[in-house]
């Protein structure tokens, strides 16, 4: 069955993301990754569903929490680990680290650690596509918190006015660091987007890779036809905001708040498939880690290159 093949493809990538991040958790105490890490464990379905629903030549602009999008868009795993390790064979030779993953050859453009700052970039890329008569689209991935920044307003307005092919993709995990959405937002994305004449959809089933993919396909089709669109996907961050631990004991949220999500999470529910795929994926990760370990650290010759 076609759907089954798609499901397996997406599942495999989602599992790879989770295993990669679990490996990061395992490696972290060794201090070989000396960089803040913002894990997407719990949010993998968004990355894989979205990227699978896009064309390979569509551009994605992302954030500090983008291990998932990097992998789902097709970035090299070995170069990623080398980057986390801060090595010369890393994607960006160690200058970027976890917060700034990029893979221009597969359409993942720069990831920024300043919240909301890549939202207008996607609008700008979409403007380029439109100016050139291209049918590519640009996607900006951001968290729910990012929509509070003024630049979100400016970006929506411009995108709507110029009718550029941009997809605003909100990963709504309900949190900005430790702040819950209701204390931060007086609006809902749908009504807000509608005020700019921008269509939107909120998908509650953010654990469902196929549903995310389907929603993306539909949204991308609208965007490709020239109408910006807001796709909001409810999801769940299992780990702490930054770092490799859990944070339920700090009392700002309960583990119950993510349990409902976990009960539907295919990577947990479909344990059999996960188990079947794991060995192969772990070998892939082993190889990537070995690649990183073998790569030399950058030094003086690299310090002052590529500045202007």
């Amino acid at each position: 069955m076609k759907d089954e093949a798609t499901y397996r493809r997406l599942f495999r990538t989602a599992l790879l993301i989770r295993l990669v991040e679990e490996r990061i958790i395992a490696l972290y105490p060794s201090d070989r990754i000396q960089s803040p890490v913002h894990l997407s464990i719990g949010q993998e379905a968004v990355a894989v569903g979205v990227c699978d629903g896009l064309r390979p030549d569509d551009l994605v602009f992302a954030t500090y929490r983008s291990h998932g999008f990097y992998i789902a868009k097709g970035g090299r795993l070995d170069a990623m680990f080398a980057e986390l390790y801060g090595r010369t064979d890393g994607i960006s030779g160690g200058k970027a680290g976890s917060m700034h993953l990029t893979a221009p050859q597969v359409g993942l453009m720069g990831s920024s650690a300043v919240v909301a700052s890549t939202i207008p970039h996607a609008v700008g890329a979409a403007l380029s596509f439109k100016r050139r008569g291209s049918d590519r689209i640009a996607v900006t991935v951001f968290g729910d918190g990012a929509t509070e920044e003024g630049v979100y307003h400016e970006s929506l307005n411009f995108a709507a006015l110029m009718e550029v092919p941009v997809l605003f993709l909100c990963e709504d995990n309900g949190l900005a660091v430790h702040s819950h959405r209701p204390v931060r937002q007086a609006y809902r994305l749908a009504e807000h987007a509608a005020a700019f004449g921008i269509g939107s959809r909120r998908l509650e089933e953010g654990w469902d890779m196929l549903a995310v993919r389907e929603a993306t396909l539909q949204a991308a089709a609208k965007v490709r036809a020239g109408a910006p669109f807001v796709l909001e996907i409810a999801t769940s961050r299992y780990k702490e905001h930054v770092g490799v631990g859990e944070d339920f004991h700090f009392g700002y949220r309960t583990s119950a708040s993510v349990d409902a999500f976990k009960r539907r999470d295919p990577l947990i529910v479909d344990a059999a498939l996960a188990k079947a795929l794991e060995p192969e994926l772990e070998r892939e990760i082993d190889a990537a880690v070995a690649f990183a370990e073998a790569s030399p650290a950058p030094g003086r010759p690299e310090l002052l290159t590529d500045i202007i």
Partner: protein
Amino acid sequence: MNVALAQSASQGTRVLSYAGALLETMDAALARHTNVFIMGQGVDDFKGIFGSTTGLAEKHGAKRVFDVPLMEEGMTGIAIGAALAGDYPITTHIRADFSFLAMNQILNLAAKYRYMFGGLMSCPMLIRIVVGRSWGQGAQHSQSPQATFAHFPGLTVVMPSSSQAILDMYPAIIARHPGPVISIEHRLLYNLDFTVSDTGKHVPLGSYVAREGTDVTVVATSVMVLEALRAAQYVHDKAGVSAEIIDLNSISHPDWDLVAASVRRTGRLVVADTSWLEYGVAAEVCRQLVVRDPRLLKQPPSLLGMAPAPCPTAKSLEDIYYPSQHETVDAILTQVTGAGHGIPLPVERSMTEGYKRFRGPF
């Protein structure tokens, strides 16, 4: 009045205003490079950024030259995104002060992208910002943030002081410069006519000697280069003093060796900048000299810039807020012959009285 870089118009030269030079280079860039586009508030209106973009939307189309809402941060981010996708965006701010709304995109994103991604990303683009002065611009329409931008590695910051500088630098920047460039254009220059030559390269993307001299080195930026040139002529005529004028021109990548070599010869320094002295261009000039050799300076330099306050609106205050022709001449003479030089100073107090009664448009 015709403020010529070369003192006399010779063969192969023509007269071109600063705004005219901007318009020519913008027009040529649009014609030459299909990936160039210009966006900014009012770029397509009849005033066309003080005449520097007038008619270009009609000529090149609304996809190449277009108005934007009030959205400095968003616009700059959009420019970065377009640059990442292969375009060459040119954005405008009719006052440098408004670029402060785009500081995050400029400092945290554009300036960082090439390095942060190990060379994988680059955002070549030109941000044109205009410095206001005179006719009551006040505290929020008068700032000149060259030091602010040049402090941050990753940005290229230039301050073209003549039509020739525009003609020489802009095409090179647009065609070849790999990263974001901030060009700080002074509003008072726009309506001035300059003699330019279309052959040969005159103004580099660094610093250059705008007038040779032997007694004192004057390092100047933007409109202060013109002030310094006028002052140099005055002290030459009245007192036989020979001032060397260096147009710093690039603020992020000046030719410090050129400056040091000049000071090595003259031993005397005047800096004439368009902004505040504190943590400004004058400070960096002093640093560059003393790290080479503190003995290059035979005496304390004279430093000219805005008074250490926000810019007042009243003309009587503005006249003493900015360094006047009077003070520029005095600084040069004081360097060369001491404070009691006794040479009569020019009567004109304010630069804007000197060669242009600036009354807008703003």
